[in-house]
């Protein structure tokens, strides 16, 4: 009895003779109640034997009868049943669930199983876990899992292995690999593909579609532009963490002004507000916390920047309360960017303890969602 593995692609080559020559013919090979089928393959009769290739992707484990239907000019001229059934065996090693790493509370990590169609959100960093099952009853031989993600724009990225866990007990049957995270920067379908390789043989493959949308509520930036290279740690903004503005170098010891804008890109969303958290301010010469004046905030819509705030940051937030968010409301538009310019910065001593002029995070509110 032919024995195969689930999802294995095999080609049945059927020597078929149809007479007379010149007839439009078709053949379809299928298992069981068409749980797997080659589909209808067309050919023209020649009056002599022809090898017709009929590819089949093997179904779930089980034993299946094999059927072959042959038609000529649309008429069924032969319905065959193979003498031997096909057996789909349970593989010794197989890929199991794919999970996304989440952080339900401080210091905790919780992988949550994904299914095709699971939602992810623009602005997220997605870290995937891929599990495998080992029912061989023996320890896993050398193995690896290759994982890639194809973004909605068609670009494909291989994900690196961050760490792996293997059950120390051969009787235990599972293991997993955690892969390097990827950034969700586009709406659309992200296709995750995993391939299990054991002893240099491809044993199993799976594919998973994740649907990326813009989260309702507050969204982190998905890109930034720091044209003057005046800021640092901008990538943190994509995670909702502070960005730091910095004036460095001896020549700027007595700088009072910082007019280097930083731009943050967002998925285009309907919005009427943004928020910014001032998380730390420098101190003045007397050791008192100060706040910069003339903070300019622009939002991008209708192919142009539009100012929505100009003035002291105190009016939108209380920087004495670290991490507190202050909102700026503006007329509703399809917004895709926020630009912030600290037009005037108070004195600070770059040789002193407060090298960082400012830390802040910025988010845009999605009315739709």
């Amino acid at each position, binding site marked *: 009895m032919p024995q195969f593995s689930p999802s294995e692609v095999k080609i*049945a080559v059927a*020597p078929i003779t149809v*007479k*007379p020559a010149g*007839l439009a013919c078709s053949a379809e090979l299928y298992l069981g109640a068409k749980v797997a089928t080659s589909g209808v393959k067309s050919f023209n009769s020649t009056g002599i034997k022809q090898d017709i290739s009929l590819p089949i992707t093997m179904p779930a484990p089980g034993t299946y009868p094999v059927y072959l239907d042959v038609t*000529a*000019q649309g*008429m069924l*001229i032969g319905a065959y049943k*193979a003498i031997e059934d096909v057996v789909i065996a349970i593989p010794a090693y197989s890929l199991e669930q794919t999970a996304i790493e989440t952080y339900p509370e401080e210091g905790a990590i919780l992988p949550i199983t994904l299914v095709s169609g699971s939602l992810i959100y623009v602005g997220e960093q997605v870290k995937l876990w891929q599990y495998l099952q080992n029912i061989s009853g023996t320890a896993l031989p050398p193995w690896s899992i290759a994982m890639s993600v194809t973004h909605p724009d068609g670009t494909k990225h291989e994900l690196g292995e961050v760490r792996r866990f293997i059950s120390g007990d051969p009787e235990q049957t599972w293991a997993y690999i955690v892969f390097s995270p990827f950034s969700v920067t586009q709406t659309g379908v992200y296709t995750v593909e995993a391939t299990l390789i054991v002893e240099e043989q491809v044993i199993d493959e799976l594919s998973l579609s994740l649907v990326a949308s813009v989260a309702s509520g507050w969204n982190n930036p998905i890109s930034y532009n720091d044209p003057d290279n005046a800021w640092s740690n901008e990538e943190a903004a994509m995670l909702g963490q502070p960005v730091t503005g910095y004036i460095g170098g001896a020549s700027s010891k007595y700088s009072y002004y910082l007019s280097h804008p930083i731009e943050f890109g967002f998925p285009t969303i309907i919005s009427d507000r943004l928020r910014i958290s001032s998380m730390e301010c420098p101190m003045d010469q007397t050791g008192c916390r100060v706040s910069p004046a003339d903070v300019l905030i622009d939002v991008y819509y209708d192919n142009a920047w539009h100012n929505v705030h100009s003035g002291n940051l105190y009016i939108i937030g209380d920087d004495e309360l670290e991490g507190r968010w202050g909102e700026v409301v503006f007329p509703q538009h399809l917004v895709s960017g926020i630009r912030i310019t600290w037009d005037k910065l108070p004195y600070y001593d770059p040789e002193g303890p407060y090298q960082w002029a400012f830390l802040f995070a910025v988010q845009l509110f999605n009315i739709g969602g």
Partner: protein
Amino acid sequence: MEFEKTEGKGLERIAVDMLDPVMAPGVSRTAVAPITVSPSGLSCQAELFLGPNDTTKVATSGKKSFASTGASQSVSLPVTMPTTGGVAYKVFLDVFANGYRILAYQATEDVIIPSGSVDEIIWE
């Protein structure tokens, strides 16, 4: 499917539509032939048969009687298809009047009885 005359003094050519020239082995089908015999009132017969030639009748409707009307008549000619497949059979139609064959036609298209066989399947 069209017929062309091979013998006789009737119409030079009679066109006959046959919608499905591919038949399964052993099935019974009825050919409906529009036949015109003049003058009216003659005792007529028609026979449709399949074969490799007009002297070897592999399958036949037998002679079906009708009386001529001088106008076109649809004459039903039931035939059980040959059980031997894989062959294209020629189709012949003979028309008799008062016992004399007055028309002999051969269809321009053959009736095809397909056959198929499958040998051992190999998995690659």
